[in-house]
């Protein structure tokens, strides 16, 4: 079994659906930082079967809304002096503006600079979607 040292002060992004770890790594631009970062992929998990984990040896600002859009099961642990001092769940926003595009090619938001895509949260078959405020099509956030 591969072992990775715990971090002393920083952030652990846990319960990432296997495969999403590298995407979040890139989205947070962790390849550009100068402090230690570990990306673990395919870690055995009772809850998920397999999961990815990111350990960051620094307290950076993490956008919980953006993480929630990518993967709502993620938890974010804040570590100080080797201990978890705060455990946060991601936020699934009820309304989203400008973070992603509407998937409908006929939607005005894809052809007019004045139309900032606005979405309202909707669920369908247990999945999270967003309903476009202009054309009402359902879009899911993908990275």
């Amino acid at each position: 079994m591969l072992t990775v040292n715990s971090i002393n002060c920083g952030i652990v992004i846990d319960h990432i659906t296997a495969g999403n770890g590298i995407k979040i790594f890139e989205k947070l631009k962790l390849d550009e930082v100068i402090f230690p970062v570990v990306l673990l992929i395919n870690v055995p998990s009772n809850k998920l079967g397999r999961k990815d984990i990111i350990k960051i040896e620094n307290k950076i600002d993490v956008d919980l809304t953006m993480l929630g859009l990518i993967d709502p099961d993620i938890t974010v642990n804040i570590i100080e002096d080797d201990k978890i001092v705060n455990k946060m769940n991601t936020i699934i926003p009820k309304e989203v503006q400008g973070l992603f595009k509407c998937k409908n090619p006929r939607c005005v938001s894809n052809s007019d600079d004045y139309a900032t895509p606005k979405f309202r949260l909707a669920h369908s078959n247990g999945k999270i979607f967003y309903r476009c405020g202009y054309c009402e099509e359902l879009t899911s956030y993908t990275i």
Partner: protein
Amino acid sequence: MSLKGKHMIDPNDFSLSELDEVFDLADRMVDDRDLYGSICNGRILGTLFYEPSTRTRLSFESAMLRMGGKVLGFSDAATSSVSKGESIADTIRVLSSYADVVVMRHPKEGAPRLASEYSFIPVINGGDGGHQHPTQTLTDLLTIRRYKGTLENQTIAFCGDLKFGRTVHSLISAMSYYKGSKFVLISPAELRLPEHLKYGLLEKHNVDIYETENLEEVINQVDVLYMTRIQKERFFNEADYMRLKDSYILSKSKLKDSREDMLVMHPLPRVNEISYDVDDDKRAVYFKQAEFGIYVRMALIALLLGVNVNVNRK
């Protein structure tokens, strides 16, 4: 309650009581149209038609002219400033000083909603791509209300192309707000109501939906039969089209099992989905439906403008 200054982008932008206000006025206009012949004197309707439309544009123009108002606009984007690349937001802001109310048809879905965000005058959606056509929906609702006396507890069958038909999407969405609405969806598998719409209905209203491919199976159980055209090019293959095309044609013989007070409706234009021999049947109301479209547009324009509609014959 006043509708003055509001936009009509989606029928669900209005509450049920606001819709009733439109229908009540439309009813009064049907009864005595001339009485309202000058209520829009000095007012101007702007018509922004970014794609061709004969029926909708003319019905809006007729509605405004019948109330003594005037009309200006364009019916072809190629001959307007739009062809120079002007944005919708800029066009509507300028038009706001030329007209008092504007109707917009646009091929992009959501374009009238965008226009309403920048407009200083009421915007009416005259059809946006495959998305919404609210004044057709108001026409349909008025027709059902006039013949049935209520919009509640109606079982409505939609037959034909339910996937791409925006009039169907719009009417189902609006009817789902009325108590006791039940929907029967009759279409080939390829042209079923999109899942995201069906899901939206079930999520918000828990409505009763039954799907079938067979018109004859359900024609005796419905209060309203809403026919739409099936276009050959929508089918994946010729064999399916040949197998199914007659299933979605309403003929006099198919009507014999239906209720005496059932309504046959159609947004028009029809091609062959309703046989001509149905036209004389008292259940066929599609030409009256088209006529009511003028009155509902008159009522809508008048209420959005906030003109005095309390006129009486002396």
